[in-house]
C-alpha cells in the first residue's frame, strides 16, 4: 500500500474544483497532528476568502466564499500558517455511551471474533477500555471519526456493504471504530448498539459531540 500522506514530509495542497482546497498534513494520524489541524482550521476560518474550514483525519478542507483569483497566495498563506506549528488543545467533555454488544444489534460480532481470534468478552473489554478522542465530524450529520482504538480488534471492512445500518450502530472498520448517527449504508462491522441521539437539526450546535470530546463505551450488556 502506498500512503501518500505518510511518504511525504511536506503538506500536500490539492484542488477540489473551484469549490475548495484540501490540505493534507504529513506524518502520523495522531492527536498531536490533529491538534495542529484544529489550530490551522481556527486560523484560516477567519480569512475573507474562506466560507468554512472542515477538519477531518489529519487533513483540512477549505470551502471558498467565492473562488480566489490568486490561488498561489492562498496556498502560500496556508503553508506559512501551518509551519508556525501551532496546536489547539480542545477541552472536550467526556461522554459515556452505554452499549449493548452482540445479539440482534451487533450482527457482525462473529466476524470480529473470527478475524481476531478473541472471545466476545475480550473484544468488549478491549473496546471499552480506551478514552476515544473525537478527531472530526463527517460522513453524515452527527457522525464522529474517533482516534484511539486498540489495533488488536481491528477488522477489515466488509466486502459487501450493509445497505441500511440503523442509527446508534457501534462498529469497527479497519483500525477505526465509530457510532452511526442515522440510518444508512455502511461497510463496517457492527458489534453493538447505543440509544444515544447524536444529532438534532433544531439544536445549536446541531451535533451532540465536537472535535476534542472524549468517548468511553460502557458495556451495558453482552448478548452471546
Amino acid at each position, binding site marked *: *500500500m*502506498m*500512503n*501518500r*500522506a505518510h511518504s511525504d514530509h511536506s503538506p*500536500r495542497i*490539492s*484542488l*477540489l*474544483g*473551484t*469549490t*475548495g482546497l*484540501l490540505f*493534507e498534513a504529513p506524518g502520523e*494520524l495522531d492527536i498531536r497532528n490533529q491538534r495542529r489541524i484544529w489550530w490551522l482550521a481556527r486560523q484560516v476560518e477567519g480569512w475573507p476568502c474562506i*466560507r*468554512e*474550514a*472542515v*477538519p*477531518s*483525519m*489529519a*487533513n*483540512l*478542507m477549505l*470551502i471558498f466564499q467565492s*473562488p480566489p*483569483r490568486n*490561488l498561489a497566495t492562498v496556498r502560500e498563506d496556508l503553508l506559512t500558517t501551518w509551519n508556525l506549528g501551532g496546536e489547539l488543545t480542545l477541552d472536550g467533555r467526556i461522554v459515556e455511551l452505554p452499549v449493548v454488544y452482540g445479539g440482534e444489534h451487533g450482527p457482525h460480532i462473529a466476524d470480529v471474533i473470527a478475524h481476531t481470534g478473541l472471545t466476545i468478552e475480550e473484544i468488549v473489554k478491549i473496546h471499552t477500555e480506551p478514552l476515544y478522542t473525537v478527531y*472530526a*465530524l*463527517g*460522513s*453524515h*450529520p*452527527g*457522525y464522529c*471519526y474517533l482516534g484511539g482504538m486498540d489495533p488488536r480488534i481491528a477488522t477489515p471492512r466488509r466486502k459487501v456493504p450493509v445497505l441500511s445500518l440503523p442509527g446508534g450502530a457501534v462498529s469497527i472498520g479497519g483500525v477505526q471504530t465509530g457510532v452511526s*448517527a*442515522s440510518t*444508512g449504508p455502511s461497510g463496517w462491522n457492527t458489534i453493538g448498539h447505543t440509544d444515544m441521539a447524536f*444529532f438534532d*437539526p*433544531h439544536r445549536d*450546535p*446541531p*451535533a451532540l459531540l465536537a472535535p476534542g470530546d472524549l468517548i468511553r463505551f460502557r458495556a451495558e450488556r453482552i448478548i452471546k
Partner: protein
Amino acid sequence: MIEILSATALATVQDLGREGYLRYGVGTSGAMDRVALAAGNILLGNPENAAAIEIPVFPFHLKFRDDIAFALTGADATAQLDGMPIPPWWTAQAKKDQVLCLNAPNHGARCYLALAGGIDVPVVLGSRSTQLRGEFGGHCGRPLQQGDVLGAIRSTARSDAFTGSPLVDFGVQPPEVALPLGEADSSVDRSRTFVRVLPAAEYDCYEESSLASFWEQDWKITSQSDRYGYRLAGTAMVPKQALEQRSHGIVPGVIQVPPSGQPIIQLRDAQPSGGYPKIGTVIEADLWRLGQARPGTRLRFVQTTYEDAVSALDTIQDYLSKIRSLAELYLLSKR
C-alpha cells in the same frame, strides 16, 4: 397551495443548498441543476435561492388549490395545464383546481417547478433543501408523496401596477442553448454530455494509459445514479500502486475511483467526507449539466484550468443576469 396527485417517488423540495454545516457532517443537498432553479425563481421575481420542487420521475401530476403564478425550468417535460401546453423555461398563471401534468422529457433529467414567492417550508440549518440522510429540511425531511400539500410564501414582487395581476406568460432561452459545450452541439446530440474537470489530489497516481482513456473515452452513466452520485462504466482506471487515503472532506463534483476502477461522481446528497482516491472534480460551473444527464447516456470529461473554471462561473452569472434584465424589461413594457 398545491397538492401532489402522483404516487411518485424522489421529487424533493430544494433551494441552492445548505452552506456552512459540513463540520457537523451535514452535506450541501440543494438542486442538482442550480441554474434551472435560479432561473425559475428569477422568472417569478423570487429571490434566486427560493425553494422549488425538483422532479426527476415522470409523469408527475399536481393540482393547484389557489390561483398562483408558477415557472417551469430544467428538462422540457411537455407540460400541460388542464390540457393546455406550457412551453419549457416559461412562467404562467394557474387557476384554482387546475391540474399540471409533467410528462417524460425527450432529453434532460430533472424539471423544476417554482411558485411565486417560493415553496413555504421551514428553513433548517440555513436552507430549505431536503437532507434525506438526516431526515430534515424540505417537506418533513423526505421526498414528496401523493396527497402532500405545499404552500407558497406570499409573493410581493412582479404584479401588474394597474391590475395587480401577476406578470406571466414569458420565457427565456435554456442554458444548454445559451451556454453550449463540447465538440457537438448539445442541442443536436443529447446522448453525450461534456463536462469540464480539474485534476484532483490522486490524478498523478494512475497509469498513463488510464489517464489517456479517462479523457478520451465515453463514460456510460449507469442506472445506479441519483442525487447521491453517478456511477460510471467504462475501461477501468488502473493506479500505479494500491492507494489508501485517510478520511477527508469532499465536495459535489468530486470523481472518486473505488478499487473496481469504475469512477463515481459524488453529487449533492453525497456524504461530505470520503476515503477513495480522487482523480478530478467536475467544475462547479458544469454541475448543472450533470444534473440534466440521464442514466444510460454518455459523459465526456474535458480537462480545464483553474482560471477557466472560475471564468465559467462568471459566464453562468452573466447568463442569469441576462435573464433578470429580460424579466425586468418585460415588467417595464407592461407598465
